[in-house]
């Protein structure tokens, strides 16, 4: 399953995505090791969904320009010809969309839609594909899967629809599953079930997953590693326990203080809002709202520094005498703690 290679499954180096004059994703650097789950956190407009779409190759030239590098299982995705990318989509990379109701074709049955990737990528015939589809549906917890094959999406509840989406994404046993806010459109009571289901499937098959989330608590429970995005820049990345437990970047700290806990004090909201693309500062994008900003923050972009078990992009950290390393031009990926794989 891992095609015998060691090292990260997915590695982004200075990956930049430009739409017109604006860099929607600005020199994003992260890695994802096989079998681990990564959470992409950030507020709306941070670029999380854009990154997800770019990873699966639905956001490509000529609509946007791509720079830098995105390596998946040894294959460079930036500049990959469409035909080869198609062989990856739905096959080795699966994507679960946020709104399952809108993401299923209303004119085709559930069975027809699940069988599509099975026939295309695995070359299964109609009957084998149908049998496998029933297996998949049962796996994701849909009762009476056989008769459900002929159901149309609108005949299923929201939770069922999302389960179908998940089964489609997992149909060909992908090495990487990307889930873009998979539970945001569902009722709270169903959210936990669905999240648990995805996690179970991912762990069972040993594949990696990237979760695009805005819910910190959920991220803490579900993800091994976290990367925090702000306005297209990675500001902090590392193991979830480190990033969320003891955040070091002012933005992450701010995010944490926004989370209401039963015994917490009053809400301390983050001041201001994300700058528009036209007004994006040259340096650290967070400088306009950062309570600790210094003049350097506005002009120079801080690199990702390894610090206390995670990577942070902040001049205050970089300049600390106690920081572990002198800022280097080449970003360093988050170190893997001992006992990898345990959430």
């Amino acid at each position, binding site marked *: 399953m891992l095609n015998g290679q060691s090292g990260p499954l997915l590695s982004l180096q200075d990956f930049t995505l430009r739409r017109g004059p604006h860099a929607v994703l600005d020199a994003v650097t992260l890695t994802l090791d096989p079998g681990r789950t990564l959470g992409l956190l950030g507020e709306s407009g941070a670029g999380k969904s854009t990154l997800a*779409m770019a990873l*699966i190759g*639905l956001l490509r030239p000529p609509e946007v320009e791509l720079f830098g590098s995105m390596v998946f299982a040894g294959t460079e995705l930036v500049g990959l010809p469409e035909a080869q990318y*198609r*062989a*990856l*989509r*739905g*096959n080795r990379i699966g*994507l679960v*969309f946020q*709104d399952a109701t*809108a*993401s*299923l*074709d*209303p*004119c*085709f049955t559930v069975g027809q839609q699940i069988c*599509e*990737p099975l026939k*295309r*990528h695995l070359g299964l015939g109609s009957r084998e594909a149908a049998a496998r589809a029933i297996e998949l549906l049962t796996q994701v917890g849909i009762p009476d899967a056989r008769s459900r094959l002929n159901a*149309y999406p*609108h*005949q299923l509840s929201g939770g069922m629809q999302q389960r179908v*989406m998940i089964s*489609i994404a997992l149909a060909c046993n992908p090495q990487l599953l990307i889930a873009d806010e998979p539970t945001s459109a569902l009722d709270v009571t169903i959210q936990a079930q669905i999240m648990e289901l995805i996690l179970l499937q991912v762990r069972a098959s040993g594949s990696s997953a990237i979760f695009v989330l805005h819910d910190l608590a959920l991220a803490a429970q579900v993800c091994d590693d976290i990367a925090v995005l702000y306005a297209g820049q990675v500001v902090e990345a590392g193991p979830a326990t480190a990033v969320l437990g003891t955040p070091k970047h002012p933005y992450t700290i701010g995010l944490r203080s926004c989370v209401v806990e039963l015994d917490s004090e009053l809400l301390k909201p983050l001041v201001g809002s994300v700058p528009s693309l036209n007004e994006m500062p040259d340096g650290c994008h967070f400088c306009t709202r950062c309570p600790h900003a210094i003049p350097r923050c506005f002009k120079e972009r801080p690199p990702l520094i390894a610090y206390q078990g995670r990577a942070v992009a902040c001049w205050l950290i970089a300049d600390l005498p106690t920081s572990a390393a002198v800022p280097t031009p080449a970003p360093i990926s988050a170190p893997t703690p001992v006992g990898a794989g345990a959430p």
Partner: protein
Amino acid sequence: MLMNAALIKLLQTLLVLLIVSVVAFFFLKMAPGDPVMLLLGSEYSPQAYARLMHELGLDQPVTLQYLHWLGRFVQGDWGISYVTRDNIFKQAVLQALPVTLSLATLSLLMALTLGIPAGLLAALFRGRWVDGLVSSLSVLGSAFPSFYLGIILIWVFGVELGWFPTMGFVRPWDDFWDGLYHLALPAITLAVYYTGLIAITTRSSLIEVLNQPFIAAVRARGEPMVRVVGVHAMRNVMMPLVTVIGLQLGGLLRGAVMTEVVFAVPGLGQMITTAVLSREYGVVQAGVMLTALFFVMVNLVVDQTYRFLDPRLRAR
């Protein structure tokens, strides 16, 4: 569940048709001219008049006349034409209707064959010259008066270039290829209107559908664009397309009537207009009833097709 909805629709349609028949009957009553006089012609005498009137049942109360008429109508007895001395039913249903149908069908086929791909191209190459060309031509086609277009086509292709016959009509079922040859120019004239409409609708529907999230989802499974557009997108475009075709049936018929008159095609349109000119109100009435009947039925079919195409409308 579904049967009940269809049944109700059917009953409602029948009621409408009944009202239509009442309207059509009284229309004939309102028409100027005295049918008895017309039939008698030169053999008029007060006794003959009274006798014929009694024979025709015109001396009875109106409601009774209507019921008699309705009874005869549904049995196919539509009266005799003064001009041709021929059975009107035969004239309308057996001779004129099939001609109009063949014209309309041929035109629709042409329009679909040209219009859908044109709209597809315009949508896929949105904003480029293909789109501009298709959109402009479509607007032009849908607005251009059919009878004028017919005249121009006759002149250019019939008279000047001699590619097509300018008069005479051969029924396709008598001689298929010759019939088609004679139908070609009128069918093209009619098709121009519909092609424009279909192209515009296909284009705008396709653009809308391609923006839907499920299209991205299908692509995310690795399906090639050919299938994404050709199967998934187009399948979802069928519904608005059928809706528009249904809504524009009146326009199609209008175009058909105009085309028939210009090209002297012996269909319903020509039958009705000639009948008005020669004050053949019986024929006009028959034509009106027939077209209304047909119109209502086709609308019903389109309605059901719409239901069939959209799975969301089927269950509930």
